[in-house]
């Protein structure tokens, strides 16, 4: 059963990748010449069907994993991220069905692919639940929060498309920079995934002496550019080089700080290389490429899709990330609210999206300013899910 689950998961991942490629190919083809419109739209239809098959297969993967392990597959980072990726693709399929905007696929399907690839970075083995997680609130809280976040992801994609579409008419310099940074951050994420997955598949692992905070050694899964304090060059090798090249600065606190710093440096290196490569292909800033892709689209429709993603997602997110979270916190810890970093960041995201919803009814704020908030909202969600675990510790024992 767990073998079947892995096959279905891999099948879903392949389907999402193919779907994303088809959607991108569709846009590229349409840009070529009007005579390719029919073929291009055919690609879009196939892309939609492939994505839908992927969603079904992915759902099957989660159900079979559930049957095989006997516990709801939402108890570690891999399972959670996988579910989030499923939610993104599910809402993408639903909203594409409603609005029939295949171009959305070129922006949202890659987001789904990235989320699922990111899931694969984490250990995939089933771990039994620790006492704090043994509750039916776990699947209730996690699934509803993730579903809402999935809808927000679609809104993010549409908002970025809207901003790329309207920047030709008017854009402040900071908006140009911010748009480009969306692309850069995306390539950073891709860079991290490529590096982490590559060395995970290669089985790279080295234990380094650590005389800073923590116990004795730290196990690195990436070649140490920055080693812990107390490690010295030659403790590890990579491509014939003696690693670590440097040691982490002494002011860094936290048990795994040197390892996190090392991961960050790798991410920036790999992401920047990918970004530079893409820029060479695009022969210009990536936002220009993005703008060309959405040039023929109706900005009002994009704005509407972005709004609808949030309108659909907000009630679900409220239920999962605030209501269920508070009730569970009360049951497990005795307090419904403790300003734990994860709780605080869920509140920040929730406030941010409710701010967006209010902006929509204020004259002059409903267009580009609101779209920026919709785009930034997903960045906050990502930080809540990933950044809080990496940078701030808390009661949530989800951290990888």
């Amino acid at each position: 059963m767990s073998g079947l689950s892995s096959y279905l998961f891999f099948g879903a991942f392949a389907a999402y990748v193919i779907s994303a490629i088809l959607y991108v190919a569709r846009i590229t083809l349409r840009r070529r010449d009007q005579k390719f419109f029919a073929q291009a739209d055919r690609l879009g239809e196939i892309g939609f069907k492939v994505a839908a098959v992927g969603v079904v297969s992915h759902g099957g993967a989660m159900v079979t994993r559930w049957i095989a392990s006997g516990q709801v597959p939402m108890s570690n980072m891999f399972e959670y991220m996988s579910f989030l990726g499923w939610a993104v693709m599910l809402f993408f399929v639903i909203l594409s069905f409603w609005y029939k905007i295949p171009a959305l696929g070129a922006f949202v399907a890659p987001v789904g692919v990235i989320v699922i690839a990111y899931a694969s970075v984490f250990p995939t083995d089933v771990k039994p639940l620790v006492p704090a997680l043994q509750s039916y609130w776990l699947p209730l809280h996690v699934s509803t929060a993730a579903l809402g976040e999935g809808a927000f992801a679609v809104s993010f994609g549409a908002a970025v498309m809207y901003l790329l579409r309207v920047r030709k008419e008017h854009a402040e310099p900071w908006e140009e920079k911010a748009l480009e940074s969306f692309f850069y951050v995306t390539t950073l994420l891709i860079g991290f995934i490529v590096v982490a997955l590559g060395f995970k598949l290669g089985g790279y692992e080295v234990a380094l002496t650590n005389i800073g905070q923590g116990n004795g050694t730290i196990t690195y899964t990436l070649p140490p550019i920055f080693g812990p304090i107390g490690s010295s060059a030659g403790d590890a090798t990579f491509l014939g080089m003696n690693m670590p090249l440097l040691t982490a600065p002494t002011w860094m606190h936290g048990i795994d700080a040197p390892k996190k710093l090392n991961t960050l440096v790798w991410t920036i290196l790999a992401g920047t290389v990918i970004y530079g490569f893409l820029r060479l292909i695009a022969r210009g800033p990536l936002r220009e490429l993005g703008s060309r892709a959405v040039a023929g689209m109706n900005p009002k429709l994009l704005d509407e899709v972005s709004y609808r993603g949030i309108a659909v997602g907000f009630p679900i997110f409220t239920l999962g990330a605030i209501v269920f979270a508070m009730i569970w916190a009360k049951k497990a810890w005795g307090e419904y609210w403790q300003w734990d970093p994860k709780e605080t960041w869920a509140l920040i995201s929730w406030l941010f999206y409710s701010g967006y919803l209010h902006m929509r009814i204020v004259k002059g704020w409903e267009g580009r300013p609101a779209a920026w908030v919709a785009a930034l909202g997903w960045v906050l969600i990502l930080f809540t899910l990933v950044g809080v675990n990496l940078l701030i510790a808390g009661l949530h024992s989800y951290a990888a």
Partner: protein
Amino acid sequence: MDEMSAAPRAAAEEEIQTAEPQKPTKDLLDRTWDFFASVPVATVLIFIIAAASIGGSLIEQENTLSTLQAPLEYYKARYGSVMGTVLFRTGMTHMYSSWWYLTMLFMIGISLVICSLDRFVPLWTAVQKPNPTPDPGFVKHLRNRFEYRPEGQGVAGLAALLKAKRYLVIEKDGRLYADKGRWGRWGPYITHIGLILILVGAMMRAIPGVYFSQFIWVRDGEIVKVPNTDFFIQSEKFVAEWYDSGAPKLYKTEAKILDGEGNELLRHDIVMNEPLSFRGVELFQSSFKQELGKAVVGLVERESGKEIGTFELDLLQPKPLYEVNGYKIRVIDYFPDFGLDEAGKPTSKSSAVNNPGLVAEVSSPDGKTFTNWYFIMYPEMEFDPSVPVRFTTIDMGVASTTGLSVKKDMGVPVIYLGLLIVSFGVFATFYIAHRRYWALVDGPRVIVGGWTNRNHGSLTTEMQQLAHQLDPKTNPIADTLEGEER
């Protein structure tokens, strides 16, 4: 699923509908009221609170510190002398209880109340007391319209169709008004009322007696008074289990609630996610410790090495006297965590059983008495090896102490009610669309106007279907394909 959307213009229309008429002169009260009733002000407040909350999660908060330094000194060392002092003095280091953060929460609370009050009456009139016979020009100028030639008399055909679609239909003076999904209009206000309740529930903590939070340690078998109550808790046994991987599997306290006379009032296993609840007080499994608790001790004749007998020594609180085969062992002094003080005298460094040692007076059946030290963990260490009997440690056992959080919060039911109302409110807001139709007879034709507060596409589709059903000849079904870049 097709009812979940809105276009910005619908909301804007609502804004215009409910806007207060401008008064010529405004006093301070009016202006304050307008300030808090304003959507832009509320929006800005929401974003400021969000931004401030980010700050609080990035700056290390006082309640998470574990340091030997005074907090101010710690922050000076962590963030630099000036920055550390500024952060500490402005309350950035206890953000969520600082006066200005609470002021902002209070302001958003005021805004919620005033916005609700400000819009309640206009919305009540607009939604619950609609005008079924508005000016014909109003209907003729609605953006969504269709016309048809009725087969029978007047608007009867349309009324029947709308009733079948669960619309509330009012016919008056040969004209028609119909609407459904009124909850969708009330959704935002319901949400706001829920949020107000949550804030009220949280503020109730300030009232004496509403809230307390304590922590107690209860050793296996021990009876401890539950703080701020008139009952007692006994832990019969604390159980901790682990998976093969070493990860924890179960923390459980087998607990009994007793009254002052020792009568059992309730028996309940406290595990994580399943607190014990009794008379409004809840006990949560939140910690434990396991320490040496008992030892099986052998009394041995020194010369022959023959064992006289064994007894079980309670290391948490030894009994004053143990008897083994006619020998009496009197515990004269006991040190659970043996050490020497500055003057070189024996003392206990703590009350934890880390290195138990005791002074025992042993009386043999023939009436001789000897006094000697006995260190349970190091029985070979003796101060007086001339004594004819000695102790050996045969076995040592663990005693568990469970750590329980004791909480009472009478605000919780209010909070839960608020959460329920918020949940209903947000779903009503975004998943229920308020749709309304007006129809009037204009010569041989009927003019139908439609309006909705969200999801215009779905209203358009419904109107096309209605037009087609009422008059297929003049209203063929249009190609509904909604597209991009065609």
